């Protein structure tokens, strides 16, 4: 063992198979995607032909109304849904950590939505939102309000999708934050209470700062996942009405597959990867400087 530790090159060689495997699985597809983004592909006579188009695919993004709508709606969805999910997840985690032995039941219940496959969630919420016989409209009908076209109205459709996303993904935030809440040192809180701090003051001045790294990490993780939202939009609205619920993953899907334009779809994908990577880098840098 001592010999192995001492021989640096041996250590590097030992991880080489794993590195190559990882490179094959992740780096090569990314490289292929990047190369494809500078080309147009056509199939004729059973053969594919790549034609070099330089930056044309990237330049075309600026005039693509669907791409712009997709980016804007995705940013709105990520901002609103992630903030709501982290806030609700934190509240549930705090509540759950204080109910003692019964918390197991609550944990199971709170986690249920994340266990349901996306296709079923789409079907459930599509039925619930149904204009004619959906349970949501039946409930608001009880209080004398008329039926609302949750998925067919341009002004409401995105909000309706965001509500489904919040319902679906809040358990993710809850799970991460519950672990952080349960790891909080009890003695500091107890000392504050002995010193006369109210529950709110204790939460604001002690628990929240201690939880901040976990909240930040949860927010970033959740935002990354939210940026990739596809199934909910595909199943509930198909991006419509108009471009009201167009999100960037759906735009990529259409350009790439439905319209059979892999070069342009790749340019769009690379751009989105770059945006996500930039957001993560900025967020991590700010977090690092804050913690220092």
């Amino acid at each position, binding site marked *: 063992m001592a010999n192995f530790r001492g021989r640096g090159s041996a250590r590097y060689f030992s991880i080489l198979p794993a590195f190559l495997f990882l490179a094959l699985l992740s780096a090569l597809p990314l490289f292929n995607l990047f190369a494809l983004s500078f080309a147009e592909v056509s199939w004729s006579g059973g053969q594919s032909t790549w034609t070099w188009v330089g930056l044309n695919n990237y330049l075309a993004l600026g005039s693509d109304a669907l791409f712009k709508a997709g980016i804007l709606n995705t940013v709105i969805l990520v901002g609103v849904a992630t903030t709501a999910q982290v806030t609700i997840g934190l509240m549930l985690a705090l509540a759950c950590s204080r109910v003692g032995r019964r918390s197991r039941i609550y944990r199971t219940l709170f986690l249920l939505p994340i266990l349901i496959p996306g296709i079923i969630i789409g079907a459930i919420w599509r039925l619930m939102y149904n204009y004619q016989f959906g349970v949501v409209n039946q409930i608001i009908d009880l209080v004398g309000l008329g039926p609302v076209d949750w998925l067919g109205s341009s002004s409401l459709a995105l909000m309706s999708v965001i509500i489904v996303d919040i319902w679906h993904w809040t358990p993710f935030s809850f799970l991460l934050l519950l672990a952080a809440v349960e790891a909080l040192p009890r003695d500091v809180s107890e000392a504050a209470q002995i010193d006369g701090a109210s529950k709110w003051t204790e939460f604001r001045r002690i628990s929240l700062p201690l939880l901040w790294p976990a909240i930040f990490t949860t927010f970033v993780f959740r935002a990354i996942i939210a940026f990739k939202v596809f199934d909910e939009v595909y199943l509930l609205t198909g991006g419509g*009405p108009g471009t009201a619920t167009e999100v960037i993953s759906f735009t990529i899907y259409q350009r790439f597959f439905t319209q059979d334009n892999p070069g342009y779809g790749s340019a769009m994908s690379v751009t989105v990867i770059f945006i996500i990577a930039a957001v993560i880098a900025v967020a991590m840098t700010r977090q690092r400087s804050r913690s220092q």
Partner: protein
Amino acid sequence: MKLLAPIYRSAALSAMAALCFTTASVSYADELAPINIVINQSPWLDGFAGLVRRYETETGNKVTLDVNPYAGSLEKQRNAVRSDQSEYDILIVNGIFYPEMYHGGFLEPLKNIDPDFKLDPQIYTYDDTVCFDAVNKTVNCETGDLLTIPVNPNITLMFYRKDLYEQNGLKIPETWDELIANAKALHNPPEMIGMMQRSARATISITWDYWPYLISHGGSLFRDEGNGDFFITINSPEAREALETYVAISKEVGPENPASMEQGDLIQYLVTGRAAHAVLPAAAQSQMDDPNKSIVPGKIGYMTIPHAPGYASAPALGHWLGGIPKNIPEDHKVAALAFLDWFQKPETQIAYAELGGSPVSAAAYESDFADKPENRYMLTMRSASPMARRLWTIPEGSEIVAVLEVGLNRVVAGEISVVDALNGMAAEIEKIMVDAGYDVGRLPDLAN
């Protein structure tokens, strides 16, 4: 030994029988390989699947159906023909996406498999979309090769409540204005919606519903596509009038949420007795008279799509074609062609109608079966089929339809005006065409 003789005889006979059976099985398998068909989930699928079961029973050949959603079927077909060897022996290609299969050279001309193969004379050729002239890049049965057999006509018909027409003394409308008047007379939301159209955005939805409006107002997508003139005319005054009529019907006699209406919604409204009219593919008729699915059995009538004064009705052709990929083994090509040949026979086509499918042969529409009251849609099909109009014949159609779906849906959703939508779509389609190497222009922008 004598006692054992009958046992030996029986064993010998059994062995001979088994040998014969095995030999027969082997030779049969040599003649017809099992085939895979990739197909989409459509209202007419049950009829087609029933026919496949009948084929298996009659011939002993094995057929597997790979059923997918619309977009999923398209993706599987693209992947199949672009790979070294297709996993599918027959592709059920949609009338929107067949041009990319033709232009890409992915389908085997049927006469290459069997030089004696002929299209049954009673099979409709649907605007010659079953043939492709690879030299001139046009669909043309006089100069081109037979590449496909039609599998489903999928012509749009106007479904209407004939009982309400009789009660209210309404006449079958010829023009769009007459239709609007009838729909207004029956419009009583939310209990009864005057007219349902599918205006949702999908792979192809609102485009297909708008097409009859466009053509029957004298409009077009290209100036003269049949002769290779792809000058873009989607922003013409005729197209504007067509779209304004479409939107007026949606707003005046449609549901509250027209922009999210899909085909399933239209069928649901009709079978639950809450729609007076709906434009649907003929195949949807199979659900109208089924008492397990419909509360209005026997009350739905069928008419050809209305038109603007001075123009002909133009039902949209969204048909399905069965083609054989080039990249499959020869024995699979033979087996696939055997199925298509069986499928196109007049007696098979009548059976297809009996099973709830939509036949593609005049033999079925002119048979006694079509004259039965429960098959009344077939009489309308008989008159509508010759008027049906194809959409486009170029592979860029998959990009063009995406532009049309978003633009038209945005108009119905109220996001943009008719004029802005048409001008915007014309510009986008021009770009697609120019990028694809066509030397084209477009009409000047419409003024608001």
